[in-house]
Structures are given as structure tokens and as C-alpha cells.
């Protein structure tokens, strides 16, 4: 199996499909450049990522809300009962700092939590405990690739806060609109990652998000699952005359619930603003919501009283003073990040860029690959492992509906299988069958044996198959005997087939030749 051009295309497709994680109806967008020459697009993204902790931000309720019955992961703290007091989840702070470190941020030696006051039925206390002027992390960068080019975007800040509950909308029996408040999500830790307005196209925005999400998954700070709402994105979009250094009036876009929605919404919005400006109009600073079904952004009416959040220091929570010792200890949790690992895979394992990219797409996959390679540091192992993972294991993973970070067989199992292949103990075809049948806890070699997939070392059995073949194909046998040596190919194939594919070709050929050459 060579990593030919077909593999490369397949790999690129896989990167795209896996990154979008939709799994259904993925279209490869032809990257069209929409910015006119007159205007430059300016985009900044604000990402809210749920922090991957077991318990909530300020109480010990389970942070798992998606599958729970409404209002079953709720206590006095996260439902804002009178007299309730918050206690910070240390792991949430550490994961937020870890995110800041992964994004090259400065970690604040002194930080505090603030109350952000606003009224909405999903916010039980009437304020959200967030961070205002002293966020945990500031001034970072995210380097990502877009259209094969490296792009550097600034990260303004990363701060910690708490999620709100959820509203479920219903129509009451009298026809009025009612909303049901489920507080299971209330108080789940959330990081807000604010990016600088350094993105210049909707594609930048998409690739920025893909790279950011990959880092968060790598460091274990968030699942980054966009469909489940664990990774949410708002965008600030403005246009300015090319060459200008001033920013135009920015429009905030909300309600984008997938990577694809982000790209489509931004593309729509850029074109909309361009149209307004080219017609001599002006852009109003406003918030617009993306309506996915209609493919448009729509202005959201806001009251003038809105957005006076009256932040002030949360008196129930003492400040955070993360000294160098604490930050160092958190930094020790940082794994090799995707970009560095990709580069190392190219360098150390002799992989192509696209293969390295997909093998490092998920930290678990990269660990898996390395683990499979470690057991046999021979030259050919990394190539072989890469090909098997990219083609066979990913195929099986999709077939079985496994998440992208879970492989169908363990690294040890695959290593065992590759050991057999490398030692020529099993045919490629049998190996594929073995892979499909390998269950948890089984070793490759034992399973191959029990499935009769190991080569047939029994010459008598091969001899029987060869004799049957010669008998069944007398013409071919005669051709061979008459000097048409190539005719043995047909007989060889048939003989191997009659052994269930288990006869080694060289052994079968030797026996056939012996039988055909011997005077009968």
C-alpha cells in the first residue's frame, strides 16, 4: 500500500469532515474569496467553551446536563436560593489557566471574580459570576493554518465564568408562549476566549475555530462539541476601506451553531455590509442573529436599558493570586500541542504533512499512533501504522459510529497485527479480516489462530488442494507442462483459494511445480 495521491485526497477530506464533525452531508466548500478589492473584512471571535470538569463552577452538582432529567443536577447554589454561597472549583481555574498557557497568554498574578448583573429567567441569581477587569489570562496568540498559509491571531483574554440554565419553549393550552426553565446547566463552568479582530475572511474564522477547538480538546479543557453547545461562538464583523487602519462599525453575530454556520453567516454578513456600503449606506453597530434555515442574519431589537451590566467584585469570593509556583505546576500539565506534534510526526516518522495533520487531529489518535510505533521502532512501522490507521481503523471507526477519539481496537492489538504482517505471518487480506473480528481483550495472534487466518503450514493440505486444482483445470495444467509457464498463475490462485487463502503463495507454487513437473 503506497501513500499515493488517492490517499492524500482522502486524508484531506477526512480532516475537513472530522473537523466539522457533522458526519452528514458534508460539502467541501470551494474557498471563494468574497472580499472586494475596495473593502477589507475585519473579524474578531468570542468563543464560550464549557470547561471539562466533573462538578459545576461554584457548587458540587454534576456538570453533566445534556442527558439528565430537567432540574435534577441543581442545588441551593446553582438555583440561587436565599443564603447560598459559591465556592470556586479549582480544576476549572486550572483548566482556564492551562488554556491561557496553550494560547501563549500572560497569566494574571492577581485576578478576581465579578458579578455581571442582568435579568433573564435562565439566570437564577440575577447576576452571572464572571470576570471583568482582571481576567485570568491575557495577551495571547493563536497560530493556525488557512489555505495552506500560517495566520497569527491575537487572543485578547481568556476568563472564567458560569453558564446559564436552559429555556425550553412551549405553547400553553391557551395558545400563549411559555418557557420552561431547566437549571441543570446553570453554573457549569465556562471559559470566554476573546480574540483580537485579526481575522480577514470567513475562512480565517472557520480555521481559527477549528484550531482553537483542537487545542482545547488536546489539553482536556473542553469537549469543544459545538452541536451540544459546549463550544459556542459569536463574531464581530466590520468592513473598512482597504489600507485604512481605523475600524468600521462592528456588527455582532450570534446564533451560529456549527462551524459551517459560522462560515456561512460571516460570508452572508460580509456581503450584506459590502452591499450597504457600496450603495452609499452606513453600517449601524448592532447585534444580528444568524437564521440558519433562511441563510440570513437578522437584526435583534435591543432595549436601550440593556447592557448596563453593573459589574462589581464578587464579595462572596476572595481573589485569586496565582503565583509562579502555581502556574508552573499547571504548566506541567500541558501536553505537546497539535502544531508541534504535527511537525514532529513529519520529522520523526517520515510522514507527509496531510497524514501528520490527521494523525495529530485528536490527541488520542496521536497517542495511539505513537504507541503502535513504539513497540517496533523499525523503519517501516510508522508508514505501515499510519496507513492502517488512516484507512482501515478510521473506516471501521466510522462504520461502528465511534467518536473520533475512540479507536476500534487497542494500540496493543494493532501493534500485534502489524507485527504479524511485518513477519509475513499473515496475509494483508487475512489481516483486514482479523481487524474486523478483533474483540476487546483478545490478542491479534490468538484471534488469528482461532479464526484460522494464519498461513497453512501443512504441506499435505496444500498438496491436496493443488491436486484438486490440477484435476479441475486440466487445460491449464497441460499448458504448463507444454512450456507455457505463465499458466501456473491461474492454478496458483485457485489452489490458494481452496485453502481458504491461508496457503503461502511460495509454498503453494513449489508444491504445484513439483506436482506438474513430476511424471504422473
Amino acid at each position, binding site marked *: 500500500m503506497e501513500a499515493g495521491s488517492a490517499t492524500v485526497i482522502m486524508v484531506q477530506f477526512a480532516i475537513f469532515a472530522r473537523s466539522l464533525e457533522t458526519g452528514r452531508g458534508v460539502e467541501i466548500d470551494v474557498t471563494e474569496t468574497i472580499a472586494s478589492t475596495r473593502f477589507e473584512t475585519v473579524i474578531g471571535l468570542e468563543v464560550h467553551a464549557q470547561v471539562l470538569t466533573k462538578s459545576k463552577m461554584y457548587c458540587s452538582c454534576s456538570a453533566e446536563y445534556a442527558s439528565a432529567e430537567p432540574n435534577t443536577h441543581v442545588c441551593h447554589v446553582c438555583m440561587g436560593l436565599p443564603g447560598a454561597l459559591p465556592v470556586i472549583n479549582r480544576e476549572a481555574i486550572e483548566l482556564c489557566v492551562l488554556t491561557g498557557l496553550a494560547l501563549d497568554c500572560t497569566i494574571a498574578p492577581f485576578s478576581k471574580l465579578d458579578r455581571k448583573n442582568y435579568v433573564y429567567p435562565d439566570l437564577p441569581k440575577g447576576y452571572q459570576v464572571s470576570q471583568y477587569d482582571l481576567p485570568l489570562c491575557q495577551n495571547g496568540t493563536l497560530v493556525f493554518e488557512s489555505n495552506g498559509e500560517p495566520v497569527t491571531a491575537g487572543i485578547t483574554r481568556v476568563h472564567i465564568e458560569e453558564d446559564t440554565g436552559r429555556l425550553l419553549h412551549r405553547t400553553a393550552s391557551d395558545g400563549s408562549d411559555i418557557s420552561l426553565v431547566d437549571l441543570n446547566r446553570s453554573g457549569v463552568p465556562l471559559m470566554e476566549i476573546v480574540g483580537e479582530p485579526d481575522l480577514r475572511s470567513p475562512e480565517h474564522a472557520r480555521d481559527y475555530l477549528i484550531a482553537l477547538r483542537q487545542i482545547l480538546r488536546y489539553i482536556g479543557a473542553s469537549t469543544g462539541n459545538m452541536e451540544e453547545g459546549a463550544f459556542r461562538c459569536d463574531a464581530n464583523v466590520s468592513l473598512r476601506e482597504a489600507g485604512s487602519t481605523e475600524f468600521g462599525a462592528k456588527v455582532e453575530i450570534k446564533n451560529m451553531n456549527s462551524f459551517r454556520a459560522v462560515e456561512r453567516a460571516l460570508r452572508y454578513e460580509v456581503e450584506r455590509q459590502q452591499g450597504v456600503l457600496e450603495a452609499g449606506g452606513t453600517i449601524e453597530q448592532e447585534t444580528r442573529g444568524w437564521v440558519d434555515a433562511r441563510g440570513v442574519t437578522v437584526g435583534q431589537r435591543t432595549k436601550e436599558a440593556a447592557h448596563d451590566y453593573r459589574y462589581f*467584585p464578587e464579595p462572596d469570593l476572595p481573589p485569586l493570586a496565582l503565583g509562579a509556583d502555581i502556574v508552573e505546576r499547571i504548566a506541567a500539565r500541558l501536553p505537546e500541542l497539535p502544531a508541534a506534534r504535527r511537525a514532529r510526526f513529519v520529522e520523526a516518522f517520515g510522514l507527509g504533512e496531510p497524514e501528520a495533520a490527521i494523525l495529530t487531529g485528536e490527541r488520542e489518535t496521536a497517542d495511539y499512533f505513537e504507541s503502535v510505533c513504539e513497540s517496533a521502532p523499525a523503519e517501516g512501522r510508522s508508514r505501515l501504522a499510519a496507513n492502517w490507521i488512516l484507512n482501515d481503523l478510521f473506516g471501521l471507526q466510522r462504520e461502528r459510529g465511534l467518536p473520533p477519539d475512540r479507536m476500534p481496537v487497542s494500540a496493543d492489538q494493532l501493534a500485534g497485527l502489524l507485527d504479524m504482517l511485518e513477519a509475513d505471518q499473515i496475509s494483508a487480506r487475512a489481516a483486514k479480516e482479523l481487524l474486523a473480528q478483533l474483540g476487546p481483550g483478545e490478542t491479534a495472534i490468538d484471534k488469528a489462530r482461532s479464526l484460522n487466518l494464519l498461513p497453512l503450514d501443512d504441506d499435505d493440505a496444500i498438496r491436496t488442494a493443488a491436486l484438486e486444482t490440477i484435476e479441475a483445470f486440466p487445460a491449464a495444467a497441460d499448458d504448463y507442462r507444454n512450456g507455457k509457464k505463465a499458466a501456473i498463475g491461474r492454478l496458483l490462485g485457485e489452489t490458494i483459494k481452496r485453502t481458504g487463502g491461508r496457503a503461502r503463495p511460495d509454498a503453494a507454487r513449489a508444491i504445484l511445480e513439483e506436482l506438474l513437473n513430476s511424471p504422473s
Partner: protein
Amino acid sequence: MELTLDEVRHVAALARLGLTDAEQELMRDQLSSILGHINALNELDTESIPPTASVAALQNVWRDDTVQSSLPREQVLMNAPRQNEGCFEVDTPLGGEESSS
């Protein structure tokens, strides 16, 4: 420091306090008077003084990430003015309401 009725209404709207006309006028007069006393603070030069938000001399107060049991749902909902399908029920917020981040 004289507050206007418009300011009183703006602040009442932020605080979601329904005030009658008479209450608004009384509030304007009383708050103006109280703020008048409070403005005595301007006699002090505090340019170089750091703020004190809390006198608790503590920092890095946190807990381990462990899950403990939540309240039984009956207790979560036991004081609910309106409930439905195991949830609190409200009239659906209108478009003009502030919404969550």
C-alpha cells in the same frame, strides 16, 4: 445632586422595579437627598488610595472537583410559583429582553 424622573425610571427599569408615579417622585426626592449626603466623600482625595472590596484577608479559596448529590427535584421545585414538566414555568421572554451571553 438632583436626580431627574427619567433617571429614576431608567434605574428602576434596570432593577426591574415597578414604581408608581408617586413612588417615582418620592424616590427622586429621597435619593437626591441621600446622594447629597454621600457627596461628602468628594472632600477626600483618594487618588492614590487602593480600593477595598472585601476585608477577608483570603485568597485562592477553592474546592476539589468532586461531585456531590444535588437537591431532590421536589425540593428544587417546592417553592415554584409555576411549574411544568419538572421545570419552572415563565411567560416566554420577548425579543426586547436582555438575553444570556
